């Protein structure tokens, strides 16, 4: 075994004639928080979707824990141990926060149980409540997801991802659209989560990411512009040019 949890080999992703990712080879160290950064339109979300199984790449391979998982259907990723939170909030809006997470837990245990009454699923409910505690939603268990504030929905989204007990957690711009206070809370949560699992974080705010990540991959025009430790990236001339040329973030 090597110490990369996941890597892509020569991954290319095309949408019609447009190449959103071009020959991306990169690896993500086990147990670390790696951030994928780059300006808007760089291909971060596309890359994220390849890593999380939503898009099978047009070319290239995806290797998780040494196994080639290219083309594995999306629903099997959660069972492999890869979970994600989406850039756009993606929860079950009319269900309670608790039921949201309980359903996510159930996905690993009872997918085709037609007979057990839901009232007997208290064990799952307890575990769901624990995940809500972890992301700071313990006071909102019975609230309908669509009635939660934006930041709370983002937190719920992360609880949904955690519910499949992933070894690899993928987060796409978890602070998108958040107030500064909400962002601080979220950053704390991400650091906490990263302390005992591998996390890949997509973010276009370079400042936010520099302080918390151990490894960085910079995308630009669908290609890897730079890769390395935060200090190396900070001092990389090309990265500075891309970010300064693009305006403030």
């Amino acid at each position, binding site marked *: 075994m090597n110490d990369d949890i996941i890597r892509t080999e020569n991954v290319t992703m095309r949408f019609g004639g447009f190449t959103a990712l071009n020959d991306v080879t990169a690896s993500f160290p086990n147990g670390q928080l790696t951030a994928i950064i780059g300006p808007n339109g760089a291909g971060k979300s596309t890359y994220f979707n390849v890593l999380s199984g939503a898009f099978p790449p047009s070319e290239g391979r995806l290797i998780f824990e040494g196994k080639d998982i290219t083309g594995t259907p999306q*629903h099997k990723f959660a069972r492999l141990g890869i979970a994600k939170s989406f850039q756009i909030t993606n*929860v079950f809006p009319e269900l309670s926060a608790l039921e949201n997470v309980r359903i996510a837990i159930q996905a690993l245990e009872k997918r085709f149980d037609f007979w057990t009454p839901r009232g007997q699923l208290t064990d799952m409910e307890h575990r769901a409540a624990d995940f809500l505690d972890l992301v700071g939603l313990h006071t909102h268990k019975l609230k309908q997801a669509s009635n939660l504030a934006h930041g709370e929905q983002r937190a719920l989204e992360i609880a949904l991802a955690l519910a499949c007990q992933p070894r690899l957690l993928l987060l796409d711009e978890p602070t998108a659209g958040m107030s500064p206070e909400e962002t601080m809370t979220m950053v704390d949560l991400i650091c906490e989560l990263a302390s005992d699992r591998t996390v890949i974080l997509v973010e276009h705010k370079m400042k936010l990411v520099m302080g918390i990540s151990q490894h960085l991959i910079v995308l630009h025009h669908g290609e890897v512009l730079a890769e390395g430790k935060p200090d190396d990236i900070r001092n990389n001339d090309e990265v500075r040019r891309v970010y300064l040329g693009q305006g403030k973030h």
Partner: protein
Amino acid sequence: MNMSNLTGTITKNRVLVVFAFLLIFPFLAPYEALATDVLIYGLYALGLNLVFGYMGVLSFGHAAFFGVGAYGTGIAMVHFGVHWVPSIFIGILMAGLTAMIMGAMAIRTKGIYFAMVTLALAQCVYYIVYHMGELSGGEDGLTGVSLKTVDLGFTTLNIIREPLSKYYLVLGFVMVAIFIFSRIINSPFGSVLEAIRENENRAQACGYDVKLTKWVAFSISGLFCGLAGALSAIHLSVVPIESLHYHQSGLAVMMALLGGMGTFFGPFIGAMAFLMLEDIITTMTSHWQLFLGAIFMIFVLFFPRGIWGSILHWISRR
């Protein structure tokens, strides 16, 4: 006890509530045969509601399951002399098989395309049965599905002479189906259906095989509609070719919408409202379709939750 406690109690004991109501229903309905129709169509709309209301997938092809259930039962009885009880199960199984095949083809598509594909596939079933004239009776339908008496051991029901006996015979089957249905929607599988309705993408990301789940739900739905068809064959003693027509598919959709899709009582309330209105209005005018259209428009525009859905909503907001 306030109103939302009351609805809570009703929901918790929903099978008993339905049972109690259906036991006395023939004495409230204008006549027994109409009450039996309500049972059969309520069950039919209930079956559709599993995919339409609970999973959020609109099918316009459920007549295929109703019709195949009816023809399967009828053909087994008329042409093969099979006893009526196993005949009903033959009808159910054939409907389930039809649903498995149609579902396998249709689940590749979503939304309106799913509705269109199921409609087209159900039309194929219509033409196949239509052209199997020797077995199905073609456009005249299948006649002679006669069940005159049912020996219960302690007593014999003369179901031709006594419409009330026939009602309770049908009710026996419908109650078992309602009990099973209630268990299914209250099971973990039931919550997966809700998850798919709420957010298919998220359900997929959580690890649910959405296509497989849809196919299974569609097939189960076909079993319930197949039973409804089988019971209708016994109730009417004939299977008209219209039971496979797309009008028949539309009926289930309308009844579910009218009563309240995705609610437990909705399909039965919808079937009851529909059939009783039809019964009253057709005695007054031949323009029932016009009234139906108007009633339907009013519901779609002003009460999109349907009768029972609106009541539940109104109570929960007080």
